[in-house]
């Protein structure tokens, strides 16, 4: 990935500031001396940046450090209170919104049912939820931005939803419209990539410069992080592991191909296969209930899906050779044995001894995860560029 080249002193200052803020978040509590060591910046430069951050109430200091014989070093931490980001999970018609702090904790939350058929109606529905969430802060503190995660194809640079399949909407200029309405920067991202962004900031991706996040639920998707940045790709489809073809003559996928991972192992595919055995099971809720009850057919279906996802993970390791694979989504929560299957497959069949030790981890999944991940988009921008 091409790195940006500093063009002027203003850019450099902004870059250093974001770097210092990021290091404070990752290593807090941390001293000014350690910051200077980690960044290779001079101590006066670090001190100047830290003073600015303290003045803006983004960072606070306290005496916690261990003394080496002299005065105890003053440690720096992020200000956890009254510094907010807003996140909205707009992946379905049931929107979930949160106001979160910079450490990824939920401060307020709100839900809304979005009724819309056109781009304008979708923007209006999201805008209304933004207003509700902003009102919940009661004008106290600072809101640093709004993050919105949506399903489908997104251009994160322009903030345009290129296509949201479940909504049947194309070319929604969400970022431009919301930034015209609210006085905050707005960040739009695909839902799985937003989940990876959360892990990058607060979860198992902290300090890991290269990892792959694989989501498995009704569908299967992925996101690739390289050099601490989400990789988007020329046509915004990096990480679409769900459409990795594993079987030339397999079941037909919604994309028009056969044998895609999603058509073999996504929960929608499991439901399709299960309904042949028992037509009474017609919804995902039914299928998941059967699994929880220990129904043999359901357990076997999830295990088989685990085998396919394992192959998908293996292929991903061979293609990208990531340091870590993170597994998130309802399928892993419902059937954690899938994670063991995947680990076993990697340990036994990856190409080299070193790649067999690729760190495969499951990350927690919950209903609010999408909204918190969306909020992380705004937090992420704060730590990367200011």
């Amino acid at each position, binding site marked *: 990935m091409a790195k940006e080249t500093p063009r002027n002193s203003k850019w450099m200052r902004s870059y250093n500031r974001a770097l210092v803020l990021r290091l404070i978040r990752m290593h807090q509590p941390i001293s000014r001396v350690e910051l200077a060591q980690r960044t290779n910046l001079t101590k006066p430069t670090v001190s100047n940046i830290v003073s600015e951050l303290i003045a803006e109430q983004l960072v606070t200091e306290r005496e916690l450090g261990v003394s080496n014989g002299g005065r105890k070093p003053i440690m720096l931490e992020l200000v956890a209170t009254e510094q907010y980001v807003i996140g909205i999970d707009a992946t379905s018609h049931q929107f979930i919104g949160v106001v979160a702090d910079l450490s990824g904790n939920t401060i307020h939350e709100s839900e809304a049912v979005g009724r819309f*058929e056109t781009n304008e109606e979708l923007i209006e529905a999201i805008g209304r939820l933004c207003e509700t969430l902003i009102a919940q802060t009661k004008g106290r503190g600072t809101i640093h931005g709004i993050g919105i995660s949506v399903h489908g194809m997104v251009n994160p640079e322009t903030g345009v939803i290129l296509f949201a399949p479940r909504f049947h909407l194309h070319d929604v200029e969400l970022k431009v419209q919301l930034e015209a309405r609210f006085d905050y920067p707005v960040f739009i991202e695909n839902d799985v990539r937003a989940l990876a962004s959360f892990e990058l900031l607060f979860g198992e991706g902290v300090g890991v410069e290269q990892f792959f996040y694989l989501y498995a639920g009704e569908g299967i998707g992925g996101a690739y992080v390289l050099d601490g940045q989400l990789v988007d790709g020329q046509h915004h489809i990096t990480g679409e592991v769900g459409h990795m073809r594993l079987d030339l003559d397999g079941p037909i996928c919604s994309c*028009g191909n056969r044998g895609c991972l999603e058509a073999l192992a996504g929960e929608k595919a499991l439901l399709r296969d299960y309904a042949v055995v028992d037509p009474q099971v017609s919804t995902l809720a039914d299928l998941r209930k059967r699994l929880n009850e220990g129904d043999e057919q359901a357990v076997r279906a999830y295990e088989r899906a685990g085998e396919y996802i394992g192959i998908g993970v293996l292929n991903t390791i061979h293609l990208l050779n990531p340091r870590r694979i993170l597994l998130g989504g309802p399928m892993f929560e419902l059937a954690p044995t899938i994670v063991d299957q995947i680990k076993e497959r990697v340990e036994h069949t990856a190409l080299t001894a070193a790649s067999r030790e690729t760190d495969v981890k499951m990350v927690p999944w919950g209903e609010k995860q999408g909204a918190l991940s969306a909020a992380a988009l705004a937090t992420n921008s704060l730590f990367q560029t200011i």
Partner: protein
Amino acid sequence: MEPYDPWVSYREAFGRYGAIRGFYFHRSTQQMTEQGPGDVPTDEQDIVLVRPRRDGVFQFRMSSVQGVLTIRSSELHIRKNESGYIELRALMQHMRSAGCLTLGGELYLFVRPDVDTLAYRLRLIARVLIQLQGMPIQTKVIEEWCKQAQIEGEHARRYA
């Protein structure tokens, strides 16, 4: 003269790769069945070949009409009078509102000329799209959507 083969026509129109599904619609019984290996249509059946896609774009080709009609699902509410296909847009809009419109597809309708009417095409398209989406929508509901779509088309033309 070479024997007529809908699959060849389909591939010429939409390309040879991808998973093409074939649906046979029996005119008398109104039954739609998906083609299995070795199945050959009878004279009583019309054929719809289809390949799903997931970009919100629908392309239609009919044996009796030249050219391909392209419709984006996000523009269904815009009543464009494209060669008289207001009704098709209206029908798909009903399906979209009911949450049973698939994510996109390329459809080729092979219909015997003497039964090829707008109403019949709408019915075929609706039945196939529902099959693609895999939702249990009753035939009478589909028929009602088709009827409504035709009324909307007539209305739109009358007051255009």
